[in-house]
C-alpha cells in the first residue's frame, strides 16, 4: 500500500526545488492569496504504481524570475522573458522527480512524461485547483502565488 498523499509533500517538493535550482525562497500560503499577473500552468503526467498529473501554476513575473535565476541573468533581460515558459516546465520536471521519490520512495515504479505549459485564466486555475486530488499554495518573497496540485 502506498504512502498517503498530502499537501505537505507537494509544498515541500516545490519549495526545495525552487530554492535549490532557482534560489527562490517560498513559504506556505492560503488559498485567498491573489494572483498578481497572468498565470502560466505547467503539467506533467506520471504513470506506474500511481498515475496522475502534477500541475504547477505561477504568474509570469515569477516565471521570468525563475528563468533569470536559472540562466544567471537579470529578470528584465529579454532572454528571461522568452525563456520563462521553458523554465517553469523544467522546474516542474524536477519537482515531479522529487515529489514521486518523497511520496512513493526511491524504489517507486513511476515513469514521468514530458511537461507542457499554457496560459490559463484565474477562473480556470481556481476551478482546476479546487477540484484537484491534493493541492497546496505557496508564495515567494515578493508575495507571488504558486499553486501546486495533483489531479
Amino acid at each position: 500500500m502506498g504512502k498517503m498523499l498530502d499537501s505537505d509533500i507537494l509544498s515541500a517538493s516545490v519549495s526545495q526545488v525552487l530554492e535549490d535550482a532557482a534560489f527562490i525562497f517560498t513559504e506556505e500560503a492560503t488559498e485567498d492569496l491573489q494572483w498578481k499577473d497572468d498565470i502560466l500552468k505547467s503539467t506533467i503526467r506520471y504513470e506506474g504504481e500511481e498515475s496522475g498529473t502534477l500541475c504547477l501554476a505561477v504568474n509570469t513575473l515569477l516565471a521570468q524570475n525563475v528563468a533569470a535565476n536559472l540562466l544567471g541573468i537579470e529578470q528584465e533581460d529579454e532572454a528571461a522573458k522568452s525563456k520563462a515558459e521553458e523554465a517553469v516546465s523544467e522546474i516542474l520536471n524536477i519537482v515531479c522527480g522529487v515529489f514521486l521519490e518523497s511520496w512513493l520512495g526511491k524504489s517507486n515504479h513511476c515513469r514521468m512524461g514530458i511537461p507542457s505549459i499554457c496560459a490559463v485564466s484565474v477562473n480556470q486555475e481556481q476551478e482546476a485547483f479546487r477540484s484537484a486530488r491534493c493541492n497546496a499554495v505557496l508564495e515567494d518573497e515578493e508575495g507571488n502565488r504558486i499553486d501546486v496540485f495533483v489531479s
Partner: protein
Amino acid sequence: MAYNFLVVDDSPIIRSVVSKCLAMSGLEIGSIFEAANGRVALDMLDDNWIDVVFADLNMPEMDGREMIQEMADNKMIDNIPVVVISSERNEDVLNWLNSLGVSDFISKPFKPEKMKSVVDKLLGNEEINHG
C-alpha cells in the same frame, strides 16, 4: 590539467545551468561544448577531445540512450565517461542506466559540488585520505 566537457540536452536552459555549475565547481575547465541532441553530440565527439559527457535522456532526433549505445559501439569514443542528468530518480531508471554502461547518474536539482565529485571520481582525481 584543464578538462573539456560536452553537455547534451535539448533544453537551452538546462545546458546553461549545467555549464554554469561546471564553471562554479572549481574544476579546471578547458572548453564546455553544448549539443541539443545525441546526433549533434556524436559529431562533436568526432571533432573534439572530450573528457566527460553530461547527457539528458529524453531528446528529439537522437535520445540519450541511442547516443550512449552508439558511443559504446565506436572504438574511438567508447572509453569517454557518460554521466546522465535526469529528473527521474527511481530504481528502475538507475538499473536501466547501469545496463547501458552509464558511468554515473546525477539527479536534478544538483549543485556544483556534486558535479565536481562525480568528475573527480571518473577522472581519478579523488584525494587520497591518509588519515
